């Protein structure tokens, strides 16, 4: 992954490969698309109490489209995993309990009363039904 491997004319490609390598390293750490990770840490999107992502305030069309896409994927996963176990809503809710617990300080989550909170150092406010 070193630039020195490449000869001079492909120096730019080498730099691109480095950038890509760095990107995939970030993916391996977080598992998230960089745009999604950025929107999360910027507080533009947050974890809702129903297991889906929410857009906080007026965000760009790109952020809204990204959230829509991720929520569609989430719904597909919930639908598949809930089969024979529970309703989709119940499965999504159970996942939300975990997801809100796993938010990092600075990220947004939805409190049981529906308001957006910023995760602090302590435990987040969760629904009483969360285990």
């Amino acid at each position, binding site marked *: 992954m070193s630039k020195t491997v490449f000869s001079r004319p492909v120096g730019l490609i080498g730099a691109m490969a480095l950038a890509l390598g760095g990107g995939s390293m970030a993916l391996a750490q977080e598992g*998230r698309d960089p745009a999604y990770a950025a929107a999360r840490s910027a507080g533009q999107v947050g974890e809702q109490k129903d297991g889906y992502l929410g857009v906080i305030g007026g965000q760009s069309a790109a952020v809204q489209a990204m959230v829509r896409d991720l929520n569609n994927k989430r719904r597909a996963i919930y639908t598949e995993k809930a089969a024979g176990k*529970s309703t989709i809503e119940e*499965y999504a809710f159970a996942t939300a*309990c975990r997801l809100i617990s796993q938010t990092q300080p600075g990220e947004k989550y939805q409190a049981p009363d529906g308001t957006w909170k910023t995760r602090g150092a302590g435990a987040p406010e969760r629904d009483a*039904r969360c285990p």
Partner: protein
Amino acid sequence: MKALELTGSTPAATSPAMMSPVRYFAQQLASRSGRRAACAVMMMTGLGSALAGCVNVTAPDKPIVIELNINIRQEVIYRLSQDAENTIKENEGVF
């Protein structure tokens, strides 16, 4: 999922807010049309006494069942918790 028998001894009527009104009326309609069908059969088979038979309404042979899937139940959430954690780990990019 969990269901309560409306015609049974369970206190289903104490929690009407949990029932879906649409489903409830659908059940009511279904049971009524069932009686009408029974009446029609009786009117075709019997003649004079058939009318009296229609007045005597018999209870439906099956209890009216209302599914209570609307409310998210704590016991289910608890049971799903580990499963949900595995799902999050399997789909890191989405969560």
